[in-house]
């Protein structure tokens, strides 16, 4: 199958200038369990790379090695050309980690938490103070800056958790499932800030088990399961990998029989099924073909009431690749 072609593909060529993060053949086991198994990928400036996988896939373990929290059994992590590891300090200057758990002090205020981690990042004085205020503003917590974080809602804590990772304006931002347990509104604001950071040139490594997030945010996505990177590419590349086509559903009245024949003649249309007043089409690249399809059906004498496009998503890709659903 085609997916094997992209499996285990090491990043091609020598690390280019655009590479902020380069991960090569990374492995880690816990006892008998192989949590991460030969994972390789690269993230460039301004690029958002998503690791999409179900619970226990090995996302956090991968990230822990990327952030230099735990030792890799094999393989290397390079950040801005510096080898990463628990004992290395230099590459850590360039990363901002947003852990999956809320790594903030409950007794301390939002401002104190930010200041604490800012100091550990080597910031001080007015630089630190003004950065803290900026970040409080960005995460929308300026008016709650003086409250202890144990009084915060889940979404506010999540936002602070992310703010701490942004404080020192790292070149690589690592987010481990930053939207888990967050209301839709907070979630949207989190996704928006990641988008704007990426636009500003930050490299982002983003793990999630929500395929909508991966689709929306990530320039490239690695699908990970059982510690293996099953496939990697842009969203469209991944979908093409599975050979799935888009589906269009036309509801209406009039001459649906003539419409069926006319549509079948179009090159983009693979297949048409008619069911009373409804036509089901299998189509290549529905967004492009839709205008032509609507015109053709109308001129054949069909009056359209409703048009629906369904595209294959990463969920179906994941199902194809691993034989299981992304969420159980």
């Amino acid at each position: 199958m085609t997916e094997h072609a992209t499996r285990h593909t090491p990043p091609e060529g020598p690390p280019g200038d655009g590479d902020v993060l380069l991960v090569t053949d990374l492995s880690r086991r816990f006892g008998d369990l192989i949590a991460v198994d030969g994972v390789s990928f690269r993230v460039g400036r301004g690029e958002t790379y998503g690791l999409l996988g179900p619970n226990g896939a090995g996302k956090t373990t991968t990230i822990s090695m990327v952030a230099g929290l735990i030792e890799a059994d094999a393989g290397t992590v390079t950040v801005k050309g510096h080898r990463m590891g628990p004992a290395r300090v230099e590459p850590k200057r360039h990363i901002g980690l947003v852990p999956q758990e809320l790594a903030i002090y409950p007794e301390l205020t939002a401002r104190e938490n930010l200041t604490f981690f800012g100091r550990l990042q080597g910031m001080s004085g007015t630089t630190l103070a003004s950065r803290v205020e900026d970040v409080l503003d960005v995460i929308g917590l300026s008016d709650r800056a003086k409250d202890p974080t144990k009084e915060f809602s889940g979404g506010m804590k999540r936002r602070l958790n992310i703010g701490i990772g942004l404080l020192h304006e790292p070149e690589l931002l690592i987010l481990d499932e930053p939207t888990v347990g967050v209301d839709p509104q907070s979630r949207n604001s989190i996704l928006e800030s990641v988008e704007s950071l990426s636009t500003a040139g930050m490299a982002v490594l983003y793990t999630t088990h929500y395929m909508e997030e991966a689709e929306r945010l990530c320039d490239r996505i690695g699908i990970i399961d059982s510690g293996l990177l099953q496939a990697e590419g842009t969203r469209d590349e991944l979908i093409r990998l599975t050979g799935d086509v888009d589906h269009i559903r036309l509801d209406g009245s009039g001459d649906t029989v003539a419409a069926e024949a006319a549509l079948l003649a179009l090159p983009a249309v693979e297949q048409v099924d008619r069911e009373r007043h409804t036509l089901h089409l299998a189509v290549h690249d529905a967004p492009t073909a839709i205008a032509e399809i609507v015109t053709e059906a109308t001129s054949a004498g069909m009056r359209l009431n409703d048009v629906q496009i369904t595209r294959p998503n990463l969920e179906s890709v994941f199902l194809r690749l691993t034989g299981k659903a992304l969420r159980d």
Partner: protein
Amino acid sequence: MRPVITVAATELRRFLRDRSNIFFVFIFPLLLVLVLGSQFGGSGSSGRVSIAGESGPLEQAISAQLTDAGITVDTGGHDEVLDRVSRGRTDVGLFIPAGANAAYGSDEPVRLEVVPGSQSNAIAVQQQVRGAVGALDLDRARVRALVAEGGDRGVDASTARTALAAVDAQVTPPSLRIEDVDEIAQEFSGLGRFDLGASSQLLLFVFLISLAGSTTLIQARRLGIIARALSTPVSTGQVLLGEAAGRWAIAVFQGAYIMIATALLFGVRWGDPFLSGLVLLVFGAVSAGAAMLLGALMDNEAAASGVGIGIGLVLAGLGGGMVPLEIFTDTLRTVAHVTPHAWAYDAFAAIQRHHASLVDILPELGVLAAMALVLLALGTWALRRSVARAM
């Protein structure tokens, strides 16, 4: 060094921020010092004598003797004094019958009535009264002897007294002191009523509060804060050192608070502040090491808090934190010295009661420093392991 201070300062700040600490850290230790002080302390310390009855030379002489011995003396009517004794407001009531002053002046025998109170202190104060009266008696005996010897050479009582006073001014008079020959009482004599309780409560609380504080370390591990700190450009050593230093700061803070508060509120004498401060620093390091070890080995905060308080109480009890080590049997006292408390207790006792110098307490400081080093090394090692495990 900056990251170490950042982590340590944050730990101290978290400790002070926790409201539930206020009672246990600031109020409870002082309450215990107060309770223990009123129960145990006081032997040999300044007592109170109330004198009733005829005033005059005898009453003045006794009063002067007692005041010299550090006892507070007041006077009052017969019933008033009896009432004070029965209410425990004074330790001993002394009643001087009518004519006693005149009898004293003319060398006649005098009978005085003494009514001791029921508090433990009263016996000692009664002894002091006996001593004072005894000293006066000795004085009188000397005058009598002089008169008897020199009566035929025209020496009368007043000449003898003048001569004796002149002699006394030149030679140090043999003062009569009532000394308890009991070793334990001797050890504690001169100790303020709160002094003993204060040093043992300091040790108990510094260690206990440190161990109970290991929960914040577990919390920082569980919440991934330590892991996150390790993703910043600081070394693992700096983070761990900061955690240890933070715990040390908490221990020393607690101890310094008890020292200052008991000195101000109860007049506790801590001896040379440099030396007692040094004992606190070293004992605080032992406590910090134990807290690191507990916080690294245990994963459950509630359990760690329980274990911490248990260990803290047992070690304090064994190490003289509840009952003074001097009352222990020799065997038990040897056993007690497995605890850091016992060594620190000895050092405090030496500083408070015997004006010990740095050299005198070097053995205690050495043992405590060794304990601190071992515990801190073990604690840091265990924490490093637990951090690698938890991610």
